[in-house]
């Protein structure tokens, strides 16, 4: 018998389709899940529960209790976890709906972590629930760390467990910690040397790692085998599981007490109410557009000018955040951002900087629309490494925060109908803290980052100065820790630490909070190295507001080829407490050098000195309006230099007694105002002088220039349309 292959047979066609569908080589990240930031559709179970549960009081009680549950587990986790990040606040716990929406995160911690755990849960539901070899069962434990499935970067590891009630999946619990070491090509978990995702260490897609509430030992060993710090890997996998199990236990107690309907209704309504409240608050703001252009000034390997192009439009109850025209992604540099990571960071703007009273869940972004170019540095593709995504989503955070403040000023002056916090200039926005790797004095091999990243200077407010070394932009109420405890565990010797640096903030009528110096060396170890992953050493991304100055840029400084400790011990004339003094006066022999703040892992000898400063916040308002007595107080406290007092603030005073000469000050300020008028030119004239048709040839410029739909790739002759972006390969 022969088969007529030309004849259309629906059965065959179906078989062909089934064959093609089932031949999946690699599932990979799911585009649909990763690009969506709205709520999962209302389930029938939720709808029924909401109909049946109308008592607002019960729901209020449950919601408060869920918040307490998240807080309890987070507090417990910070007690028992071992990663430096977790110990000092770089962690979070959250409760998720059955379909994976983050309903309530702990009051403290890094919200973006929790906000991004929705994606792996949704992935597990979509791909593993119906998969015979995986499935989702009571007692299962999942984990992930790959940002392409939802995360900041793969140094953050999650633990995710389903919560079942009477056989039905009703919720999820998750805990996430910035672990540090992850087996990447450089120690510490954030390799700026990574040239592909495969240099970035462990890349865990959402995977089941345990059953019956226990980890599989073979998998634990595999993860330990893949990183430099197997001790940390084991400790924190168990710690995160303990936190998730605590959430599960408490959630089941709620269901037991109030019933499944009340629980489900509260979870869902918390999300919906949050979205509605954000809409109401947005509606209270004036409609309009604000814009800012910022630049990430480094790939951590070389200086570049990578554009972060931000336009923010408020229209009715909606906010549109438009990043189109930003730089194209770098395919062999780690500073690219997955779109979901960017969105998670923007959620932080709302929940800590504008509306800290809102419930901590993902619904704050529901009324927000994001516009980006796929393949750009803020919306990278899976082929681009992303371990240092912060280097682009931090300036993007600042851009959105800055644009929002302009909208909020009118609101503030009109009685604050939008219920916003203080209008402010930018926070310092980059993680100025050393990464380290090597053997400790106790014989352990470690690789991690210091807690100094938690001390970013706060921006000036509309009615007062910013606070120094306040918090990292990604979390509130975290901790710098104690130097004595740091030196107890690690071979650090901090020569100067937590000393605020003069002039290290944005000036203004109200000044930003200052950043402090970190002058480090090491001893008592056979092998040690430093690394640094910070941008902002060339181009300020920390902006002033309404006339306030931007915060200054920061270099990395080194003194190599010398054991400073031996010299300091033996020569009482030497000191090493101030970066500026050391670099200007060169107290020791040795090689002095300054660099941009992206440093690949570098082995060092005992006593060699590495220096950088945590940055300050932006200033607010005109420097000529600053109260001269405040300028004197800044001088007295070492926050500014005499040069700044005289040349920026234009204050006349006795340098010995710091007594202000008010009349002379007034005269100097009037004179400066006149000088400004003389320096000023009409806008057309300014534009004619400064406008260029394309980026200068000697500037490594990436991003749009005069057209938002066309971007440049480092040279005037490399340009491309935003709808077909090509990734950039750096030499």
């Amino acid at each position, binding site marked *: 018998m022969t088969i007529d292959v030309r004849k259309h047979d629906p059965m065959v066609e179906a078989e062909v389709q089934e064959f093609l569908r089932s031949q999946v080589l690699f599932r990979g990240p799911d585009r649909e899940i990763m690009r969506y930031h709205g709520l999962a559709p209302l389930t029938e179970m939720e709808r029924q529960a909401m109909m049946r549960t109308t008592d*607002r009081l019960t*729901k*209020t*009680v449950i919601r408060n*209790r869920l918040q307490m549950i998240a*807080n*309890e587990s987070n*507090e*417990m986790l*910070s*007690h*028992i976890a*071992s990663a430096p990040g977790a*110990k000092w*606040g770089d962690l979070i716990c959250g409760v998720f709906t059955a379909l994976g929406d983050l309903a309530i995160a702990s*009051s*403290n911690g890094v919200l973006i972590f929790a906000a991004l755990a929705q994606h792996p849960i949704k992935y597990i539901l979509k791909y593993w629930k119906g998969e015979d070899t995986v499935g989702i069962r009571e007692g299962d434990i999942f984990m992930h760390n790959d940002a392409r499935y939802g995360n900041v970067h793969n140094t953050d590891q999650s633990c995710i467990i389903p919560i079942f009630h009477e056989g039905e999946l009703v919720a999820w619990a998750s805990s996430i910690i910035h672990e540090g070491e992850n087996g990447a090509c450089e120690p510490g978990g954030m390799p700026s040397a990574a040239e592909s995702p495969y240099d970035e260490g462990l890349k865990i897609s959402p995977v089941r790692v345990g059953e019956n*509430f226990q980890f599989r030992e073979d998998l634990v060993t595999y993860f330990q085998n893949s990183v430099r710090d197997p001790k*940390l890997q084991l*400790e924190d996998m*168990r710690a995160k*599981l*303990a936190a998730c199990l605590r959430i599960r236990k408490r959630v089941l107690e709620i269901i037991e007490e109030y019933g499944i309907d009340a629980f489900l209704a509260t979870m869902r*309504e918390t999300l919906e*109410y949050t979205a509605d*409240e954000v809409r109401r608050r947005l509606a209270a703001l004036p409609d309009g557009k604000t814009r800012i252009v910022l630049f990430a000034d480094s790939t951590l390997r070389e200086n570049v000018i990578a554009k972060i192009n931000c336009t923010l439009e408020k229209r009715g109850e909606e906010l549109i955040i438009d990043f189109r025209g930003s730089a194209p992604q770098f395919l062999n540099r780690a500073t690219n951002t997955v779109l979901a990571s960017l969105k998670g960071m923007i959620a932080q703007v709302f929940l*800590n*900087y*504008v509306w*800290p*009273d*809102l*419930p901590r869940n993902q619904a704050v972004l529901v009324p927000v629309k994001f516009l980006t170019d796929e393949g750009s540095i803020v919306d990278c593709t899976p082929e681009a490494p992303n371990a240092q995504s912060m280097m682009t989503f931090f300036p993007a955070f600042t851009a959105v925060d800055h644009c929002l403040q302009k909208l909020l000023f009118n609101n503030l002056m009109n009685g604050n109908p939008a*219920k916003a*916090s*203080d209008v402010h200039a930018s*926070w310092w926005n980059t993680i100025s803290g050393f990464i380290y790797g090597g053997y400790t004095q*106790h014989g352990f091999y470690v690789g991690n980052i210091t807690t100094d990243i938690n*001390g970013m200077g*706060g921006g000036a*407010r509309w009615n007062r100065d910013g606070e*120094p*070394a306040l*918090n990292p932009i990604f979390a*509130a*109420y*975290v901790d710098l*820790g*104690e130097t*004595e405890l740091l*030196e107890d*565990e690690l071979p650090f010797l*901090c*020569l100067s630490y937590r*000393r605020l640096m003069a002039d290290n903030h944005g000036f203004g009528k109200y000044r930003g909070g200052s950043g402090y110096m970190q002058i480090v060396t090491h*001893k008592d170890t056979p092998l040690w190295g430093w690394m640094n992953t910070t941008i902002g050493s060339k181009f300020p991304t920390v902006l002033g507001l309404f006339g306030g100055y931007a915060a200054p840029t920061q270099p990395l400084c080194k003194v190599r080829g010398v054991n400073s400790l031996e010299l300091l*011990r033996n020569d009482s004339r030497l*000191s*090493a407490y101030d970066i500026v003094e050391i670099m200007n006066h060169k107290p020791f022999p040795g090689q002095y050098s300054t660099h941009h703040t992206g440093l690949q892992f570098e082995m060092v000898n005992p006593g060699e000195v590495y220096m950088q400063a945590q940055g300050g916040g932006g200033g607010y308002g005109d420097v000529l309006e600053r109260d001269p007595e405040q300028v004197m107080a800044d001088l007295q406290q*070492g926050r500014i230099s005499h040069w700044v007092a005289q040349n920026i603030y234009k204050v006349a005073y006795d340098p010995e007694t710091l007594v202000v000469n008010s009349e002379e000050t007034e005269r100097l300020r009037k004179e400066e105002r006149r000088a400004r008028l003389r320096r000023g030119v009409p806008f057309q004239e300014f534009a004619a002088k400064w406008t260029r048709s394309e980026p200068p040839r000697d500037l490594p410029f990436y991003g749009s220039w005069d057209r938002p739909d066309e971007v440049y790739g480092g040279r005037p002759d490399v340009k491309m349309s935003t709808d077909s972006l090509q990734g950039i390969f750096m030499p």
Partner: protein
Amino acid sequence: MKRISVDIGGTFTDCFIAWDEQLVEAKAPTTHYNLAQGFMNALRNGAEKLELSVDEILEQVESVRYGTTLGTNALIERSGPRLGLITTAGFEDVTIIGRSRQYADGLTPLEQANVSGADRPHPLIPREYIVGIRERVDYKGEVLIPANPDDIRRQIQVLVDRGVRGFVVVLLNAVMNPVHEDLVADIILEEYPTSYLGSFPVVCSHDISLKKGEYARSMSTIIGAYLHRQMQYGLRSLEMTLRQYGYLRPLEVVHNTGGLSQLSRTHALQTIHAGPIAGLSGAEQVARELEVENLVTTDMGGTSFDIGIVAGGGIKFYEFAPVIDRWRVDIPMMFITAIGAGGGSIAKFDSTHQSLEVGPESAGSEPGPACYDMGGREPTVTDADLLLGYLNPGYYNAGRIRLNPQRAVRAIRDRLARHLVASIEDIAVAIREVADSKMAQAIFKEVALRGYDPRKFTILAYGGNGPTHACGYAEGLEVSRILVPANSSVFSAVGGGNLDQLHIYERTVYIFLYHPNAGTLYDQYEELNGIIADLRERGTRDILRLGYKPEDIQYRVEFDMRYGNQLQLTTLVSPYLEFESPRQILDLIKRYHVSYGERFGEGTQTPQAGISINNVRVVSYVPLRKVSFQGNGVYSSGSSRTVNEALKNSRRCWFPRLGFTETPIYDFARLPIGEQVRGHAVVEAAHTTFVVYPDWTLRLLENGFVEMVRNHGKSVD
């Protein structure tokens, strides 16, 4: 036993006198201008009850114990002297930056989250009075950079020129080697000898704490020095006053460690929060005498709700880095925590959830709840309690405050009813339920975090609003028993009467009981024994100076331990005072494993990552005879023979499961001992109102305690 204990609060000075078998409580208004006067007035009131004169009492009494708020007030008012801080160069801004989190230490979660609105507290030592000296000691105590006397003199002169009146010295790693701190102190004494009128006090950090952590140790030292002189004057003048009346023994001061010591062995820092902690110690005595395994203490006043835990087996819960005012310190303090919930807590509309939120803001005592009629416009928990029928407008605080229900109605109508679209009464119910559930959740979290099941606890409720709400938060916790002490309104003073002489010394160490790399168990017994002996010696010295004999002293050794590199340490009470064999080390490891598993979940232990001791603590104490709660209560209650005789009248009150219903109102003063008042009911006492929910009964015990018990599943109404 003849003993007086006094607790000075913001409004009242409470006095509790144990005069052999008689127990007397008395109060007098606090006299802030001279605390001794209020103290003597309260004592005089107590003496009258005993029909004795103050002189007669003070001549015979064995001990006068004093819990003071002097220090707390001085911190709040910033009325301390101008001090200078001398620290390691390069670390001058440690106390200004305050580990970054300082901006929100001691604040609410909302204030912690609001970074745009963050403001650090004004420093106790402003930056211009902080200098650095060239010196460095490393983590082991080795001197890396020797200090230079000329440099020290120069920096001292800078501070003196700026007008400081005392010095605080905090140098890096001084706890491992204090040589440089001692050198600075010597130079100051050399330059400004104490024989001169213009001498400057000097406080070194290693004399205050032997724990690593330069910020918390700096703040401990600074607060100690800041409060020192003011407290010294205040307490010395009190001691002088007592002497004039014939009390010749030393004044004993209540410490926040839950112990007691003489004035001469007391740092100012140890007196902060001593009042509530003395109350917690009183609760320990209650637990022992009434044979209650686990107690959670709740003190619900006007603005805050304090929670303390007394667990079985003599376990004490300490905070090792507590926050005082806005400052994190590193002295051990008995655990007590507070949330913003009290009678004055304000109810407001939560626009996000279209619902109701209560606290943490409070109307305080001025203007107070709207129904106080003192200008308050915000609806509060007390307003809700009034509208729910619990509070008697004419008999609140024994009639001293007349409540105006109309004001309560107006506040709820104006601030809440237009948003919530509900009746005034429904909103009052909601205010109460939200407040009660928040208190229940706060208790739940604290108890559960320590590894206990809250349902197995008894609530000890004191503070003016405790008995009014205890059934509410007990039901939220599924707790079935509430005790209200006889001396509820002076319970901190009562607790002060029951403290032991106690001194705690501790030291940071870095000892691996099990080293994972080397694969070895700890065997340097002499090193560990030496550390314990040193700390024991310090405590012994303190106690012997108070006139006790060596055989009176008992010791408890505690280790703060961890697996691997955990930050937080979990305390284990050591069964051994000395070590000599691997069996003891293994025993410690096993005990730690069990206690850790109970707290954080079995299977979460990671001994493979290493087990270390990072802090050794020795508690040296002399157990003193306790005032018994058994026997003679201080109440004159019990005048009626049956509950019905104590029935005053009835009014309409709200209760869960019943709604508004006619409710019997009883007079506490006439309540018979041992007879049950069945809920639903309200019992009015002079200083508080007991609200008895349906399914609950209230009973006055022989010892004067009130017991409220839930009868599960049985309707007793």
